């Protein structure tokens, strides 16, 4: 673990949790699960107030100017921490890989963006690769399958880490789906701009999920999970959808995504 930053109590690294807008709005339980996992990994966790969204909607719509402003806000809020961690591969990838490219003609901000980028991580890869965690204290007596969200997989090489931790969850049975690494059709604004194509992609994902025989599908990006859960429910599937952090933090007692009060 890098020791070059100022640390919190007793040398524990200070982690600023970048909650992400979707977790903040839709599923705070993922945020709490992240805090629990980070603490278990030996970190002090803080949640800066001045955070909203990482700017991907603007960035992926070609709005560089607003993206830059949002990025500055994030950098301002998070650069005091030893690490910035997000429970999302795509938001972590945004901070880590894309922020530095936003300031090509602004040396000062580019420097700051780069300095932040090296300390920025996705949650599961952070607690494993950086904190060295290789097991969790959780149990889940169910079968699960895992969807590799694209940004985490391809930008941050997150693949083995969640599986390694899931293997340590008591009673959990992982049953891989076919094409786990193929996009679910979320794609941020894509899924509302091109709903038919998105629907087709998520229906492939549903079919592969069903074929895995698992009762639950997990993933590391809430965007994808909202999409997959919304589609599964629309088609009357009984498969439940959780963020992987919820299972790893032993917090699966919350209602699954898109699950209502109605008795099933």
């Amino acid at each position, binding site marked *: 673990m890098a020791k070059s930053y100022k640390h919190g109590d007793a040398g524990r690294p200070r982690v600023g949790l970048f909650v992400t807008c979707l977790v903040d709005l*839709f599923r705070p339980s993922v945020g709490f699960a992240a805090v629990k996992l980070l603490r278990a990994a030996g970190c002090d966790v803080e949640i800066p107030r001045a955070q909203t969204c990482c700017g991907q909607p603007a960035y992926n719509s070609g709005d560089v100017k607003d993206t830059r402003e949002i990025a500055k806000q994030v950098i301002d809020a998070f650069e005091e921490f030893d690490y910035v961690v997000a429970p999302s591969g795509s938001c972590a990838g945004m901070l880590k890989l894309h922020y530095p490219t936003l300031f090509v003609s602004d040396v000062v901000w580019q420097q700051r963006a780069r300095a932040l980028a090296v300390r920025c991580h996705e949650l599961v890869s952070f607690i494993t690769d950086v904190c060295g965690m290789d097991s969790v204290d959780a149990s889940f007596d169910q079968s699960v399958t895992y969807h590799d969200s694209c*940004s985490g997989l391809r930008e941050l090489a997150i693949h083995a880490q969640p599986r390694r931790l899931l293997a340590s969850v008591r009673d959990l049975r992982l049953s891989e789906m076919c094409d786990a690494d193929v996009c679910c059709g979320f794609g941020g604004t894509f899924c509302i701009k091109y709903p038919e194509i998105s629907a087709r*992609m998520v229906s492939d994902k549903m079919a592969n999920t069903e074929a895995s025989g698992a009762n639950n599908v997990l993933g590391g990006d809430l965007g994808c999970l909202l999409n997959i859960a919304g*589609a599964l429910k629309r088609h009357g599937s009984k498969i439940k959808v959780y963020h992987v952090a919820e299972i790893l933090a032993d917090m699966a007692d919350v209602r699954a995504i898109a699950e209502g009060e109605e008795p099933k």
Partner: protein
Amino acid sequence: MRVTSQAFRTRAAVALKNVELQRAMAKAKGGFVDKRRVAIEALPEFEQLRSVAREIKEHTLSHLDYYLERFESQVIASGGHVHWARTPAEACEIVVGICGGVGARSVTKGKSMVGEEIAINPALENAGLEVIETDLGEYIIQLAKEPPSHIIAPAVHKTRDQVTDLFQEHHSRYGYNQRVTEIPDIVNEARQVLRDAFLSADVGITGANFLVAETGSTIIVTNEGNGDLTNTLPAVHIVTASIEKVVPTLEDATAILRLLARSATGQEMSSYTTFSTGPRRSTDLDGPKEFHVVLVDNGRSQMLGNEFHEMLRCIRCGACLNHCPVYGAVGGHAYGWVYPGPMGSVLTPLMVGLEKANHLPNACTLNGRCEQVCPMSIPLPKMLRQLRVREFEQRLTPARMRWGLSIWTYLARRPHLYQPVMSILVRLLEILGRKRGRFRYLPFAHGWTKVRDMPAPQGQTFQRAWRQSGDGSRL
């Protein structure tokens, strides 16, 4: 070719409902992906070759004028001719001119994407020539009067039954009245029918996978052998090639060839890799008497100087199409011009104008699978995003999108406003959605709820819940 990329959305919707197309695409998809993976796993040097190939192309592009001039002088030295065309119109004029000059009546063609790009077939037909596509896939779509839907498998959208019907309709005039339904028989019938075309053509036109500056050679890579019959039998061989196809040496071409077939079809080598250098020599017993190379720019010299120059590394292997889930869902025709899939979504707006094709860079989830498999390491998602930047700057982004985005960014840039507003909204949604846990319909999210439910939020924003938990101390 008419550009219909602006109708992407409707064409895609039609494609998704086209049962035959979906069946054809489903058959193709897995095959390409699996074969490529096996081929690449069998070549431990693949990643090294990838960076070598990138370096070769970058080197060439940064001295493109030098290598083109060198190529030109070598073609001339070996007895061939080189023509330069800025635009598709100029390229067509040159090709039609060569055909006219030798009094040609019929032309056979090997598969050439540049040929599609410059729309050479209608130009030749307007000049009164008979044009016969000889690649089986190209031949099939020529009969069907359709453009290719894939850059290496032009008829990938056609099922066998559809080919059977086409052959029955078009081959009876050659005396083939039997309905052929089995693949070997279909292929054989095409072989027989096209024999005459090969042997009687006056001019053969092929594309080029590479141009070799060192020797003035043009290279084609094929499996059927049609390209070789096209460039050997007629008296005149014309190569249409875009300017970025040049590489310095035979060794450079060889390095990239090792990536090409593996990425395209999962082969180590395609059946036929052929180097053509000049016309037949005086003692040769066969081969064309004239050899022409038409170098086509069509916007490439512009790309060279801007943020899209990496696209000029593309070797047209098709791997990005084969791994694109959007392409796999809608097929190639939805893209509305010559080049489909990820590479097409970059090239089309650059070649036909963003205003005619601004759907294409948007119809992508930026999942990055294309870049991951691209043998030339072209950052396709980055370029698609770059095109969105242009679109935004040129105010081509649809108004609704712009509005939605500006409301979001306005709030996102003001945490103190954002948080209370979102708290209320989230609370409201939770109350409405609590029972079912989701919404079948939400007025402002129609694009979402049209095809899937919208999960209901848990009720509090994380920020609020966190403060209420005493910053997590009560966890």
